[in-house]
């Protein structure tokens, strides 16, 4: 699905480039004049972009056709507000410095008031998705976004050079903001038919996220040459590919600022630690892992640290080392499954290795929890 939508998105982008460019020019002027005029422009854009929203809507529909795809996006979006909130106020204060910052502040605060439940949901429900899909889907999409940005950069430098020769840095910032506004407007239109309230909330998250991402892109040291020119294109890209990658950053995005906490790690950690501490160390290759008993089921003595990671049989039955030795001296069958214990030295070796591995894991886990 993803590989399909790349060419179409890029084609649409190339077709709408000149129009976007003209719009940007207008946006620059209006932004320099007054904020209210910018709002008026936004209204104009709304009407202009409506016809273009059709193609992106198709993309939305195509994306919706894949099972699990949109759900993943939604969860990612919901899981993100915390991360955005941490960096968003700073960058907005730097660049806007006027009423708009307070406006976005209130947005982010409203998202904060909404986020606790949603983020909790996300951590519970999509925690596994987060960790599991970070390698497959999100990495794939991040590669798309980065590659498309690069492609735009190389393809349109000449055009941008002649057009934006007189622009200074401030102007570019405004341009970026205008692009982001346009992108969000476009997306608000895409979403509004479905459910206005929910989508507007999520749009606000996206709005903040995209502003942050693009402002951050301009702050990158090497962006002075390449990304300055690529910014309008990236704005266009977010218009067309807004449905494709709605999140500002993938966890492994190259443009993601280093200061951002890795949310996937944060979300996956408590879950995995719960797992680890619930079972006190996972054991590989064993089928049914119940909770580890605190006492040896044979002698009813407490299991110490060595015993609790000692897994002599694949059935998962645990017992203390003393009882295991006594059983080996007697009939040598596992009390849990009544199968004979493996006397093969190689097999014993393997189980011992597994034991040491679990010990290591448990220790690193506890260290992580302490820090």
């Amino acid at each position, binding site marked *: 699905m993803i590989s399909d939508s790349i060419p179409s998105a890029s084609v649409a982008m190339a077709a709408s480039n000149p129009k976007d460019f003209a719009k940007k020019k207008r946006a620059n002027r209006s932004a320099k004049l007054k904020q209210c005029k910018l709002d008026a422009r936004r209204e104009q854009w709304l009407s202009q972009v409506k016809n273009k929203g059709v193609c992106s809507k198709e993309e939305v529909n195509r994306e919706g056709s894949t099972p699990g795809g949109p759900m993943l996006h939604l969860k990612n979006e919901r899981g993100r507000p915390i991360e955005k909130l941490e960096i968003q106020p700073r960058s907005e204060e730097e660049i806007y410095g006027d009423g708009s910052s307070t406006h976005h502040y209130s947005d982010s605060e409203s998202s904060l008031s909404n986020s606790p439940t949603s983020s909790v949901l996300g951590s519970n429900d999509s925690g596994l998705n987060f960790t599991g899909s970070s390698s497959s889907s999100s990495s794939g999409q991040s590669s798309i976004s980065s590659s498309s940005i690069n492609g735009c950069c190389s393809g349109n430098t000449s055009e941008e050079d002649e057009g934006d020769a007189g622009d200074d840095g401030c102007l570019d910032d405004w341009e970026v903001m205008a692009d982001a506004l346009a992108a969000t407007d476009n997306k608000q239109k895409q979403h509004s038919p479905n459910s206005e309230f929910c989508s507007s909330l999520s749009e606000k998250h996206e709005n903040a996220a995209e502003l942050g991402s693009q402002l951050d892109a301009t702050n990158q040291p090497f962006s002075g040459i390449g990304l300055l020119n690529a910014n309008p294109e990236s704005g266009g890209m977010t218009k067309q590919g807004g449905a494709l990658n709605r999140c500002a950053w993938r966890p492994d995005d190259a443009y993601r600022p280093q200061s951002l906490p890795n949310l996937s790690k944060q979300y996956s950690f408590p879950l995995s630690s719960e797992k680890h501490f619930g079972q006190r160390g996972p054991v590989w290759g064993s089928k049914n892992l119940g909770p580890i008993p605190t006492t040896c089921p044979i002698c*009813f003595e407490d299991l110490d640290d060595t015993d609790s990671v000692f897994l002599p049989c694949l059935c998962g039955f645990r017992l203390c080392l003393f009882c295991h030795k006594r059983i080996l001296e007697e009939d040598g*069958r596992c*009390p849990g499954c009544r199968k004979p214990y493996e006397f093969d030295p190689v097999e014993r070796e393997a189980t011992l290795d597994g034991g040491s591995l679990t010990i290591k894991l448990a220790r690193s886990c506890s260290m992580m929890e302490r820090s």
Partner: protein
Amino acid sequence: MQASRARLFKEYKEVQREKVADPDIQLVCDDSNIFKWTALIKGPSETPFEGGVFQLAFSVPEQYPLQPPQVRFLTKIFHPNVHFKTGEICLDILKNAWSPAWTLQSVCRAIIALMAHPEPDSPLNCDSGNLLRAGDVRGYQSMARMYTRLAAMPKKG
């Protein structure tokens, strides 16, 4: 020796703690010998043994729990897998299928399950097994009910 004693002591404490949990089983230890136990089990409902209380005698070996305890019925019972004279029980978990993970309590549960589901193909009580193998469930049930009433129920009047 020491291990089995410790284990039995732990089991004793466990039994004291879970006395209320399983009303069908009453497991008591001999006052002077921790290797001798007695159990009173209620006959499972919807069987000919319903309403009866059966007494079991446990003799725990020193190798316990690596060796299974020896259990026999002190109360007379008409059951294909229980010897009518000696009260010996033919139950796999008391022989070769024993696992050290079992406890005296779980043995009692297994015996209750055996009372509800007799195995006529390995009979210790041939009369009872023959009745079941001949398909005379009614005859088996009436015999078992009669012996339950005679031996396992308090005398009336």
